[in-house]
């Protein structure tokens, strides 16, 4: 086999980018909001991981712990009428857009009060009221859906954008090429967000692609592209703001490759150090030192914000996650009629 190209350089090196993030000109309130959202994602997923280990949650759960900055950085520039489409690892995208942690907990427990009324579980989350159109686990399946949501926005002249969240593995599916091509030729308001965490379910990117840099696919379609440290929420937000602004203005699609790492396994709460041909306990430990939450917190503290206030915000996220979990246990199950009621929207009647 030819030697794979390591074009990401330091972006793929867990020893790099460990210090406080550069806050740039981010206002305190914005940065604190991003800190709280990232913390909520992590604490909620830690609770869900615990529920999986306790046998209380049985649906497949794919955790984004360690990847929080990408979802939160992009969401910083989204509005409720935008259309985010996620995949199997999308608790983060749902919560980052403002989805309810109570509904997330109820959903993974299969309850009627869940985000998808208990019909979806972890992998099928609905949150259109906050700009999250839905997530489904067919790898790359939602990428063209986001293109279509962008097409609808363009036809309506609404200025809204479709957002496709996917991974480096999805980039190996042919429909991603089709989607990039379609969005480019029609100049659609779509943002493609790849969280390149360097692994598919089990295989190192170097064993799957001739280069570790997936942005080359977008560049070959003439799409405006940024490749960034995916564990730097401020930098993700900066490039997302630029690309979303272009898309809203009718200047066509954008593509972000955010290089990051999942602390947990492909599915389930463990670290998956026995899966794949490179991932090791040492590598996981190294990436935990490039922690997106700790790096933002350190930057805020360096700016002069009180450590006690920052800690209180992180604690509040944990409290909210635990409260949501407790509420989930008490929530009602879906009625048996739901099994057939939702197959069709109605009995075919015209809208």
């Amino acid at each position: 086999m030819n030697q794979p190209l390591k074009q990401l350089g330091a972006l793929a090196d867990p020893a790099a980018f460990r210090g406080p993030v550069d806050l740039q000109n981010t206002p305190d309130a914005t940065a604190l909001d991003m800190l709280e959202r990232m913390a909520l994602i992590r604490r909620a997923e830690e609770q869900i991981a615990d529920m999986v280990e306790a046998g209380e949650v049985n649906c497949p759960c794919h955790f984004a712990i360690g990847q929080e900055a990408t979802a939160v950085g992009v969401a910083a520039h989204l509005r409720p009428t935008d259309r985010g489409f996620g995949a199997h690892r999308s608790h983060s995208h749902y919560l980052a857009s403002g989805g309810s942690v109570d509904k997330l907990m109820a959903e993974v427990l299969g309850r009627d009060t869940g985000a998808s009324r208990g019909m979806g579980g972890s992998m099928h989350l609905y949150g259109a009221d906050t700009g999250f159109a839905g997530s489904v686990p067919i790898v790359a399946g939602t990428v063209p859906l986001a293109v279509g949501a962008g097409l609808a926005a363009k036809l309506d002249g609404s200025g809204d954008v479709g957002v496709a969240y996917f991974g480096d593995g999805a980039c190996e599916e042919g429909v991603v090429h089709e989607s990039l091509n379609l969005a480019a030729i029609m100049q659609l308001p779509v943002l493609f967000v790849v969280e390149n965490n360097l692994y598919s379910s089990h295989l190192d990117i170097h064993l799957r692609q001739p280069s570790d840099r997936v942005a080359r696919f977008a560049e070959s379609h003439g799409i405006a592209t940024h490749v960034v440290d995916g564990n730097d929420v401020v930098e993700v937000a900066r490039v997302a703001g630029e690309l979303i602004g272009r898309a809203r203005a009718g200047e066509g699609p954008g593509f972000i490759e955010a290089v990051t790492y999942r602390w947990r396994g492909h599915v389930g709460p463990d670290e998956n150090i026995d899966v794949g041909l490179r991932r090791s306990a040492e590598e996981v430990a190294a990436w935990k030192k490039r922690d997106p939450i700790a790096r933002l917190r350190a930057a805020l503290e360096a700016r002069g914000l009180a450590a006690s206030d920052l800690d209180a915000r992180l604690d509040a996220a944990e409290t909210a996650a635990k409260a949501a979990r407790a509420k989930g246990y008490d929530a009602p199950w879906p009625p048996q009629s739901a099994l057939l009621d939702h197959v069709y929207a109605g009995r075919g009647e015209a809208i």
Partner: protein
Amino acid sequence: MSATNYGKAIREGFAHLLANHQDVFVMGQGLWSPWYVGSSMTELEKEFGKERVIDTPVSEWACTSAAVGASLYGKRPIVVHPRMDFMVFATDSLVNQAAKWSHMLGGQANPGLTVRGIINRGGEQGAQHSQSLQSWYAHIPGLRVVMPYTVADARDLLIAATLSRDPVLYIDDRWLYGQEAELPAAVDVDLAALGNQVLREGSDVTLAGCSWGTELAMRAADALAGQGVSAEVVDLRILNPLDAEPLIRSVEKTGRLVAVDASWRTCGVAGEAVARVSEALEPAAWKARPRRITLPDAPAPSSKVLEDIYYPSVEDVVDAALSTLS
């Protein structure tokens, strides 16, 4: 009333939808090149604009899924696949996405797109330019599948499909395009108000078909009438969810059934028709074993001599009907 044919009736359906429903748009390959789609879409882009009648890149999967995505945001897209063999690339769009979003998200998301798959076969086109895959899609809960046979249905089922809140697969067979009829002006049609229907009344044997299968059944009924046999023809124009009541009532009356489907036999529409009636009627209601007329379970051949024996004929249906009477 004005005279038209099947292909032009489809175009009337498009024109009605585009003129009266601003949220309708159409996309697919060859839409600005009418030779792909017969007379069924001639110059729609000139009448309604290339922004709403979109000729797309060669990307069945992305385009069909894009229509799913657009349908989640207030649009009523129609995706056209000029030959349904190529629509197989869009199986994820239909089976994993369109058919599932309502159910798996608790009824909160409704992909109300329409997908038009055209059967375009014969003429030695061979295995990948000949398929008629209605049974696949009729198997999928969450999809609606319609197959117009009459000229009126060619237009009206397209309208009904597009106005439905659910994903609908509309399949038309180019072998039917020459049929002519007089039609009243187009109006909005509610798919919920439509069921399967008896096209021709009779008392001795029930011939049930869909699309080209119904055409064979109608011609067979004419031929049988010449031999003193009264055949009833039931058109299964809505395959999913399948409205079997008119079929069951017909066989209850005649006691005999020949199910005709111009597609494969195994796990197909003809088998489903036999199964539904068999479950519903007591053995005593049957005067003869039911029969199926279908394609043989083989891909379409190219060679003319093989093509001649591949497609079912009117005579096959007549012989099967007579066999139930002997």
